[in-house]
């Protein structure tokens, strides 16, 4: 089980790096989907199957489809690929690398302080829903009102006179 975690983690890291390095935007998007699916596997290994499946349904299955949908409409060709390539110069890497290194250092520092006993607890659907409709009910309601507003706005925009 823990080997699965490491494999998924390595895939996630490599895929995420590939998203940045890829000049073809469709390929970049595919790597992003792969990265999200790897994260879903990590969730599953860590004992949160519900979160894992939601990650696959919502992020990989719905949001990324819409991304791809928009890319289809944009008709991106060789021109954007050259532009991407011109942006990937070594000089542009310095500041992001420094910032990422600082974050990594902090992460390692935090990780070294907690104990490494990994006891995955199974967090099923019931526990997640009890939390969502118990302590976090206000956040859920706010989010649903936001979504409802989005739905109404989309309907209004799409309605023909």
């Amino acid at each position, binding site marked *: 089980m823990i080997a699965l975690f490491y494999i998924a983690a390595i895939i996630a890291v490599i895929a995420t790096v590939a998203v940045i390095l890829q000049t073809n935007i*469709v390929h970049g998007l595919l790597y992003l989907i792969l990265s999200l699916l790897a994260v879903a596997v990590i969730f599953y290994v860590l004992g949160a199957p519900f979160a894992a499946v939601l990650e696959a349904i919502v992020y990989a299955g719905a949001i990324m489809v819409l991304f791809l*949908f928009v890319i*289809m409409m944009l008709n991106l060709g060789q021109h954007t690929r050259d532009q991407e390539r011109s942006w990937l110069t070594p000089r542009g890497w310095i500041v992001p690398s420094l910032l990422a290194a600082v974050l990594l250092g902090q992460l390692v520092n935090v990780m070294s302080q907690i104990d490494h006993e990994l006891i995955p607890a199974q967090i099923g659907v019931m526990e997640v829903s009890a939390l969502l409709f118990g302590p976090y009910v206000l956040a859920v309601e706010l989010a649903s009102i936001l979504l409802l507003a989005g739905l109404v706005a989309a309907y209004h925009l799409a309605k023909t006179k």
Partner: protein
Amino acid sequence: MSLEIGSFLSIGLILGVVIITAALLITVERRLLGFWQERLGPNRVGWFGSLQVVADMIKIFTKEDWVPPFADKFSFVIAPGIIMTVVLLSFAVIPFAPNIGVIDSNIGVLFILAMASLGAYSVMLGGLSSDNKYALLGSLRAAAQMVSYEVFMGISLLGVVALTGSFNMREIVESQADGWYIIPQFIGFVIFLIAGVAESHRLPFDIPEAEQEICAGYHTEYSGMKFGMFFVAEYIGLVLISSLITVLFFGGWLGPEFLPPILWFSIKAFAFIAFFILMRAAVPRPRYDQLMSYGWLFLLPLSLVNLLITGVIILSMQ
């Protein structure tokens, strides 16, 4: 080696039977369509046309496997693989019989929905990488249709999930021992049926590949076995949707004692496969905007109301 959940025998049996059924469906569908159109259908190869599928397969395997020079080769090649993988993975959580199945998962229904939503990538990438206007139009239609109908498919299932109190498909089947969910969840069943047809883009909702309008839609540029994978995946999708309806609304393997459970499952699933073929023979294809407005303005409110009423009834029964 015994036949139990997750054993190699069980997995191999499911994989083999599903793929062979899907391949045989090519013949069965053509034959049934023929009967329903007062024709005979293919009856030349083998005994009553039973070897037609072999002829089809030989043809499709020996065809030139051509990748257009203007296509995005990477996406073009992986697109048929995605849909094949995704539909076959979906069978992992289907409970065929008490002792036949791949995994006994607590998130079975959600897993199916996740796989269905990943299936959209196949058609989108196939159309986008072909660099062909018909393919692009087809995949645009496919993307919008699949993303929309996923929503109603998910919501229509929630009535069954709420009645059972679990996403586990085996528990869903076992809780139908007193009565199938087709009776309390009839509206959910109808919505799931329609959304399932739209999700596997079979006729009458084969708008992404409508031959009369846009050649073959997203697989216009595909040939040989790459096309064959799209083709077989469509039939595996048909088997999947039929199995899902059987499990969720018609009590899965449950039935009187005189037949073994797996046979009950097969009979029910095949009845639905035949029903889908009947729909193909009888119902004409709607226009694209009609499909979308029908989904969002009629099916979505209906499925939400269905879920609401189910919830109210469950709460008042407690």
